[in-house]
């Protein structure tokens, strides 16, 4: 049952985007996320839409899998839209009822905001759909490497991240198994009042916790018995290499989002973006 949580999960394919260097993908994704908040005009949105479509095509991930992640934030989207619609007082009033007023500017802000959020989610899910969690952690470790200078434990952080990530599938499997085992003994998770339902989860949570601690201890023992030591000049099993793809992708992104930011800076109107920054 928990296997259905595929949202944002790596989607194996052999494509331009999959084969890019994870570090570049991560940096470009950040650039995209920042850049999208500088988009103001319809032309800008059209440009970003075309850009995203090209990226999705190049990633060979079906649109359905990508839109699944948008489904996950529908509530947030609706809430944002309402806030933007009802709390924008400037512009021509279209409808006014009790304490609510809807203005044309409010509608425009709201729809721009929605588009930004949707694009944000699509952009980040393209990153996680085309990059394995392992590659992603390595990329983060490499990108944070300069922080080692100030004694920031980059390596340990990356280790914790990759261990956590590698525990998730086995934890999901384990949960699945325990649920099945208790169901086989007649456990019922779907009926009864709230209290009864909460109580029904005890037979799952306890074995899960016990098992989690057991695994953690086994892993710690296994690492200790092989004399694992943190960051002392370890070499990496996967060597990350840049290729022509990374160059092409970087150029495209820099032109598109660099352009957007430059245009924005020339207009030099700071006022409208402030309310959006809350999200």
């Amino acid at each position, binding site marked *: 049952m928990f296997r259905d949580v595929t949202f944002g999960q790596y989607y194996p394919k052999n494509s331009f985007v999959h084969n890019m260097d994870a570090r570049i993908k991560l940096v470009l994704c950040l650039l995209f996320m920042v850049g999208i908040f500088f988009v103001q005009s319809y032309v800008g949105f059209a440009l970003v839409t075309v850009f995203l479509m090209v990226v999705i095509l190049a990633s060979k991930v079906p649109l359905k899998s990508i839109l699944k992640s948008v489904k996950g934030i529908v509530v947030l989207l609706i809430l944002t839209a309402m806030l933007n619609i009802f709390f924008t007082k400037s512009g021509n009033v279209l409808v006014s009822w009790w304490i609510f007023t809807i203005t044309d500017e409010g509608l425009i802000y709201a729809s721009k905001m929605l588009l930004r959020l949707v694009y944000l989610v699509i952009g980040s899910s393209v990153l996680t759909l085309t990059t394995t969690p392992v590659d992603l952690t390595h990329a983060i470790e490499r990108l944070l490497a300069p922080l080692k200078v100030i004694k920031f434990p980059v390596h340990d952080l990356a280790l914790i991240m990759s261990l956590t990530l590698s525990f998730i599938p086995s934890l999901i499997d384990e949960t699945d198994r325990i649920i099945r085992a208790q169901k086989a003994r007649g*456990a*019922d998770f779907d009926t009864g009042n709230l209290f009864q339902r909460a109580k029904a989860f005890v*037979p799952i949570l306890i074995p899960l916790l016990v098992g989690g601690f057991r695994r953690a201890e086994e892993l710690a023992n296994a690492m200790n018995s092989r004399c694992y030591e943190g960051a002392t000049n370890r070499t990496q099993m996967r060597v990350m290499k840049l290729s022509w793809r990374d160059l092409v992708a970087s150029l495209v992104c820099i032109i598109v989002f660099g352009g957007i930011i430059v245009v924005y800076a020339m207009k030099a109107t700071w006022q409208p973006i402030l309310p959006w920054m809350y999200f």
Partner: protein
Amino acid sequence: MSKSPVVAPQIDEKVAIYANNLNFVYNPKSPFEKHALKDISLSINKGEFVAIVGHTGSGKTTFVQHLNALVRHQSGDLFVAGLNLADKKLDLKKLRGSVGMVFQYPEYQLFADTVLEDVAFGPRNFGVAREDAYKLAKNALETVGLDFEQIKSKSPFDLSGGEKRRVALAGVLAMKPQILVLDEPTAGLDPQGKREILSLVKSINKQNDITVVMVSHDMNEVYENADRVIVFRDGGVVYDLPPRQLFKLEDQIVSMNLEIPQMAQFTNALEKQGIVLPDDCITVDQIFDALCQLKGGSNV
């Protein structure tokens, strides 16, 4: 195997499990799609002890989890304990009360404060009153050979591995199932513990007349205990034979990465020398007796 047309199996009183062209696909229409069961057809009679063997990933677990609807039926016919699993309005409680399922490493599902509570969990879920559930738990714990008075108020987490497994088995037996399904019940036990669990299962099968379906990787235990062995390969059934006949097919068995049980190797070798033993010679003792009789001597 039954290639004959579907004989309305729910009418036949003798049949405990009946499958016809059962198919199952994990994650259909996604890159993770996996056709795990392909046209499985088999039938298991009440009171039988059937072993399911096969290389890892051959679909054994997927099949046995169909038997109490933990994996939901997709296509084909499947009747278990007189219930039609293809029925949308299937009575899950009734099914799960009739089919006891013991998972691999069942001790990892223990959760209650005391052994007694844990074993009584199953019957309680099926609406048995507390006192009666405790009685069932007591019976089940005694059946698996544990000292009830001594163990009942211990925490299940303070037991040894073997004891935990017995408690978990008792938790399933306490539901009084008609069919007992075991997925690798002896995995991770020492030889002594293995033998104990197996003789336990065997006696549950013979004395309480419970149908047993056991998945196993240990051909020796399969050879000595099962009435019939069903071999899975890549999601399909390739052999369905009594153990003695099956393990005569040495080359085919080895080509499927399965072992020949030691005793079967021995009788097969004897047969090549022209010494043919009766078909019911499985254990060392039986072979010894048969050999003595062949020699015309008496067994002292």
